């Protein structure tokens, strides 16, 4: 079959690789109908995520049709149209039973690396390095889905592929940020990043009752799209002082909940950026936590900050003093998608949650290298590229 493979920093190729097969009784094989780029892939492409090997198939946010099931799959049968969570859960360990699916204790066959680097391992993730299990990704014609009863979700009839697709990763991630960030009716919520994840976080905050939601980015088309499809207020951080702006818009308090949806390649301005760039050149530190820092400074005393953006190692100049003295709650996680996906699919079906506008570009798998170039450089208003293997 055809698949999109990581070959090295900023290098992707489209290759022929062997078709996947059933390896465990609870596996299903899914024929991929739609699979999309995610900001997390940019961290892989940039070489920021450890333990990638040349030839690894990337892609983790997808939807498809079940074509084969292992003997122990109960809830699905060939022909089912399913959205598959980017995170792999077993559904039966303590973490999965407590709805902490990205901490699944049985779905990562190579937990040693994470245990060495983080003091504990996390769930397997499709197409996301050998640290997360080395599973083949979804930018391919077919994919093996382990523990299929727990990781694949039937798509309601009438919901288009390109709408349901984003309930695999972007929408549950955003929802988790607002939900576990503790958004309550009456809150003011600020969201850093107007990519797929940030937009979904802003929409989730609204649906959870936030009184005001303010989204922050620098790309005019992304800001305009967020204002239009999500309905939040926006701030262009290259045009103003974000901290001053947020204080003024919140009666001097600062937002109650700050959601960071940018990640380790955050773009920065001024001396901070120069400092980080110098360190990057000297290979002292790879990750750039600008948005996290800003969120912690902006947050009202006693408020909460949720880090959705992916980080992988250590960062310097983390504002621990602000966090401790202002009494903030700071949390982060890879998404616990399984707890939200059925509810999100319902909301998409009812029209409460609009996702299809994120698919700004639709391409074939052969065009993936071009698609990633556009996504990375945010060319032509690109927010997400959706690949359709049947094109």
């Amino acid at each position, binding site marked *: 079959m055809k698949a999109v*493979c990581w*070959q*090295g*920093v*900023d290098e*992707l*190729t*489209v*290759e*022929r*690789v*062997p078709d996947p097969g059933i*390896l*465990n*009784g*609870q596996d299903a094989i899914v024929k991929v109908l739609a699979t999309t780029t995610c900001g997390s892939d940019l961290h892989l*492409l940039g*070489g920021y995520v*450890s*333990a*990638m*090997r*040349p*030839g*690894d198939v990337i892609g983790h946010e997808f939807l498809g049709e079940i074509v084969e099931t292992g003997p*122990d799959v109960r809830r699905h049968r060939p022909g089912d149209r399913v959205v598959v969570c980017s995170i792999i859960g*077993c559904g*039966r*360990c*303590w973490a999965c039973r407590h709805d902490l699916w990205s901490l699944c*204790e*049985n*779905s990562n*066959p*190579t937990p*040693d*690396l994470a*245990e*060495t*680097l983080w*003091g504990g391992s996390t769930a397997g993730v499709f197409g996301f390095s*050998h640290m997360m*299990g*080395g*599973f*083949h990704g979804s930018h391919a014609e077919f994919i*093996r889905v*382990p*523990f299929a009863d727990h990781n694949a979700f039937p798509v309601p009839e009438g919901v288009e592929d390109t709408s349901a697709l984003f309930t695999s990763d972007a929408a549950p991630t955003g929802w988790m940020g607002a939900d576990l960030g503790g958004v309550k009716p009456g809150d003011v919520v600020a969201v850093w990043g107007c990519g797929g994840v940030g937009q979904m976080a802003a929409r989730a905050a609204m649906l959870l009752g936030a009184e005001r939601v303010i989204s922050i980015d620098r790309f005019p088309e992304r800001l305009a799209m967020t204002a239009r499809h999500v309905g939040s207020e926006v701030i262009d951080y290259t045009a103003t002082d974000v901290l001053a702006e947020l204080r003024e818009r919140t009666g001097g308090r600062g937002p109650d909940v700050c959601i960071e949806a940018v990640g380790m390649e955050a773009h920065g301005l001024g001396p901070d950026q120069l400092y980080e760039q110098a360190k990057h050149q000297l*290979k*002292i*530190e*790879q990750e750039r936590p600008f948005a996290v820092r800003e969120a912690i400074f902006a947050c009202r005393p006693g408020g909460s900050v949720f880090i959705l953006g992916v980080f992988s*190692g250590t960062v310097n100049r983390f504002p621990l003093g602000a966090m401790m003295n202002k009494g903030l709650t700071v949390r982060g996680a890879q998404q616990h998608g399984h707890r939200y996906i059925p509810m999100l699919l319902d909301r998409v079906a009812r029209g409460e949650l609009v996702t299809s506008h994120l698919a700004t570009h639709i391409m074939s798998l*052969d065009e993936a*290298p*071009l698609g990633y*170039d556009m996504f*990375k*450089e945010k060319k032509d208003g690109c927010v997400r590229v959706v690949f359709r293997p049947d094109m």
Partner: protein
Amino acid sequence: MKRVVIGVVSVAGTGVVVGRWLASRRRASSPVKDPRAQHRWMAVTINCHPDDVAPDGRLPRPLAQLDVEVRVEKAPGDRGTELYARPRAPVPTGRAAVLARLRGDHPREMVRTALRQVKSLIETGEVLRPDPDLTRERPARAGRARAKVVDMALARAAGEERL
């Protein structure tokens, strides 16, 4: 086959990235060398009742095949059951230990793997098999040397950590 290079090719190849990563992200090490490293218990917590770990006093297969000492305890709260194990015989030390780890037959490594398998078998009924490695099936190409660096990193990471 299509080969397109995205954006500016970074001067840092993967090898550099991995090397940098290994150098910068070493596990936070304790200043004190573990005096009990050779015989510390290794453990997994299994989401089940203690009676279901060793029904009729019989150990689950992956552990039963090894020469191990085993302990079973109820975990605090709702956390299930703690299953502890360690090799009965003295484990190799020094050079022999390094070689055994590289060969994959270091007794502590084997116990650790068995504990994980037992946990997964009891909780899910299977041990998840990794996807086949596509890198090895591929003919020689520029990526091979870089892949080696990651392989080494992965092999080195197989140290004994929390289970």
